[in-house]
């Protein structure tokens, strides 16, 4: 769900950008005569006429729109975005004004294309498009659900704590929201199943956020995330009295790179046993 929104955002950006980049080229010369030249003349007149900031008038070349190459744009989609291990996913991407395009884990690819992939774990397909006008990127994420047979991981030989962590898995969130994603429902059901079959376990739900935004706002957002996970578990039959909720905001990040992949890891409701 989140990735769709993200990619749509990029598409929107790309559309916006395309609208302006092409007409710019076609009319550059026309504009120079109609727009820049009179302007330069007028500036000279203004300067002679007593404009205080003569140095503010740049040479005409720097104001001509033809001088800069348009920035590249890129979109990538994955269909479907949520699969079981072994299923196929079709990646489809499109770029404009790019000279070199690559996708992490796949390598160099044409500037537009379609490719079938078989991810076995949840994967972010990160595309980078480089052109004369700069660089841009786009990401499509595929969530791979665990095989349905594994209701409970084997726990023999594990400590209680290890078994808890193997079976109660983190719930991940979209940017700036505490809504439980559709693709998190399966994990939540598994978490609830384990917790309901171990009624003596008391635990803490920690609300975590990515590094963007303020410490204070993220404490509140983390609180909302942890509360969302708590109410989902309570609705699945887990006693509220077993649950404590603490927001860690962006104070205890799981990873610390400024990438969407890392941010996603940090936007979560995490579990620890309460002792």
């Amino acid at each position: 769900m989140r990735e769709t929104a993200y990619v749509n955002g990029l598409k929107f950006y790309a559309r916006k950008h395309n609208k302006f980049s092409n007409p710019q080229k076609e009319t550059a010369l026309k504009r120079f005569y109609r727009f820049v030249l009179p302007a330069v003349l007028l500036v000279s007149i203004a300067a002679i006429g007593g404009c205080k900031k003569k140095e503010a008038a740049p040479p005409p070349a720097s104001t001509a729109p033809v001088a800069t190459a348009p920035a590249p744009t890129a979109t990538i989609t994955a269909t479907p975005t949520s699969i079981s291990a072994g299923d196929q996913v079709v990646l489809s991407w499109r770029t404009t004004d790019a000279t070199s395009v690559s996708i992490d884990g796949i390598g160099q690819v044409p500037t537009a294309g379609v490719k079938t992939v078989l991810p076995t774990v949840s994967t972010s397909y990160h595309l980078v498009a480089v052109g004369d006008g700069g660089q841009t990127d786009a990401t499509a994420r595929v969530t791979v659900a665990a095989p349905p047979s594994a209701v409970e991981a084997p726990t023999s030989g594990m400590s209680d704590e290890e078994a808890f962590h193997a079976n109660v898995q983190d719930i991940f969130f979209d940017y700036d929201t505490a809504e439980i994603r559709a693709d998190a429902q399966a994990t939540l059901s598994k978490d609830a199943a384990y917790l309901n079959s171990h009624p003596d376990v008391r635990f803490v739900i920690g609300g975590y956020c990515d590094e963007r935004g303020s410490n204070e706002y993220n404490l509140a957002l983390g609180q909302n995330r942890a509360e969302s996970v708590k109410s989902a578990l309570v609705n699945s039959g887990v006693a509220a009295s077993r649950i404590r909720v603490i927001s860690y905001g962006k104070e205890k990040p799981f990873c610390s790179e400024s990438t969407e992949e890392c941010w996603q890891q940090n936007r979560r409701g995490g579990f620890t046993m309460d002792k």
Partner: protein
Amino acid sequence: MKSGISRISPRFAFFLLLFCVAPAFAQAPDWVHTGSNLGNARIRIAAADFKPANADPSTPSLKATFDATLYADLASAGIFDMVSKSLAPPATPGAPQEIRLSDWSAAPASAQMVAFGALSASGGRLVVNGWLFDTGATGTQVIARQYNEQASQEMARTVAHRFADAIITQLGGGVSGIAETKIYFVSSRSGSKEIWAMDYDGQNQRAVTHLGVISLSPRVSPDNSRIAFASLGKDGWAVRMFSLDLGRMVSFPGGTAGGNNFSPAWSGDGAKLAFSSARSGAPEIWVSDATGGGLHQITSFRKADVSPTWNPRTNSQLAFVSGRTGLPQIYTMDQDGSNVQRLTDGGYAISPSWSPNGQFLTFSWNRKYGPGAPGGQDIYVMDIASKRWLQLTHDSGSNDFPFWAPDGRHIVFERAIGGKTEIWSMLADGTEQHQLTHSGNNFMPNWSWK
């Protein structure tokens, strides 16, 4: 022909704006200067090197500290046009009968005001006599002060701060100078995030708390007696109190319930504390009295409500951050939770601080937030009544947690560049930005009320 003219004339206007008027627009508009006490005309002032009044061996170093501090305080006040030391007359007058005001009023110094005096250390005492004279035709004495303190570098700096504040208060329309104020902040330079303090100019940086846990959001009380802050314990976040009078933690029971209490804010009269608490489930704004009693909830909305700040003029309104419509925005409300108004029209707006005269908010805003439109997180000032705003920081790092100084002329904030976060200060029109911390990572500055 006619259409040709009508096509060009808006462009003419545009270019006229760009090349003639734009440089004027690059400076802050009058409403900022007036509302922030910066004024629109600066007084040209000279700070003469003080005369050593005896030959005591400790006098020269104390005098050097005093001279440098006085000059820096006046230069950073935001209301003076300083006479550079290299343009000052060579004489160091130590008393009114030793000064020739015409030397100071004449070019190149061209000073309207001159501060001068004498300093000596003897028998462990530091004695400073300082004067401020108007260099106009009548040569009026404006200020005369005498200070007699223990002789130390620290006292030399303090006496300079006091003399500077006397001058700033006198010439700055009665608004008290801030040279003796403190800035509290969070620093992780010693490991965990602790509360630290420093002088307003970045001197004397020292740890206040040594709790060994994450502490955030320090807010000193208006009487400088206590610091409220949030810290993370086993049971979550609590609003806690450090007594500056006692030098230790004191209890604040109202700040602990429910496991998630943070972002405290004192009212200007010190009688109330607002903070965000999730004791009812979602983070809401709660208000208590100064001891933590009389708790009541004033917002009720499932999404995040955090970062309150009181209108220090009325102490009956608050601004705060809410995510009720999606990305966080700045709102104001009355202290009973009524009359909620949204101030920002989009983007990602956080961390409001209310100006001392009640007219403005400063806050951090990314106006073009979201994938594909990476904007900057910058400091803004908004006039609350008109919602006019001015961007104060541009193209330098990610800026957050602006906080007004009590003179209304200065703002302190945090700036992150390449994973390194430091405290900066600037004038309320965005000019004269100075970095105050240089060690480790430093966050969330809070300017003392006096």
